[in-house]
């Protein structure tokens, strides 16, 4: 069973601060995705990274896939209250159509 560990589990910051959350595994993934989930709703995809070392930017969010395709990070610059939510990483099995989800990082951005 492939495991994904996310850290920190909880993060509470003030508006305008920067933050980084991490997603680590001992397994190699063919791709890794980051989702954001708001209370009472299903997760929504933010980004997919495929190539080792890949960096993708989505406005104030920067995603990086580790060179060995075992880990990833999400960096948010100048966090806003609208960034509040549960951030989940999901690694896709190399030879299967299913993904393994981490337990998530709950982010709270206070105004």
């Amino acid at each position: 069973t492939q495991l994904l560990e996310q850290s920190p589990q909880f993060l509470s910051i003030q508006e305008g601060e920067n933050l980084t959350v991490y997603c680590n595994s001992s397994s190699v993934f063919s791709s890794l995705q980051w989702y954001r989930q708001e209370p009472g709703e299903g997760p929504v995809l933010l980004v997919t990274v495929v190539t080792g070392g890949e960096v993708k930017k989505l406005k104030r969010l920067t995603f990086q896939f580790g060179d060995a395709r075992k880990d990833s990070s999400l960096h948010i610059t100048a966090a806003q209250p609208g960034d509040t939510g549960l951030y989940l990483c999901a690694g896709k099995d190399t030879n299967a159509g299913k993904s393994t989800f981490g337990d998530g990082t709950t982010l709270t951005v206070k105004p």
Partner: protein
Amino acid sequence: NAGVTQTPKFRILKIGQSMTLQCAQDMNHNYMYWYRQDPGMGLKLIYYSVGAGITDKGEVPNGYNVSRSTTEDFPLRLELAAPSQTSVYFCASSLLVLPDSTEQFFGPGTRLTVL
């Protein structure tokens, strides 16, 4: 397109009762998934399907059954409900074409309580 729809949104069951959680998608996706999410946690895969007539177990399949008779529908069956099955259940679908085309589209979830 309605995307992924789930019914019911909420349900309370007594121990030992059975029920079926319905899931349908209108995007012609080949892959469908059932997850459960316990409070403050991530998603645990229960079952998934790569196409009509094909299903496979995920991480936590015990106590559940699925079927996939059509591309659109993927119901999840609980035969003998137990308190440990209290959770929020999410259905998802995806169109697996290329390694980077695996976005999963999620339904709104079913909140199940077993008392």
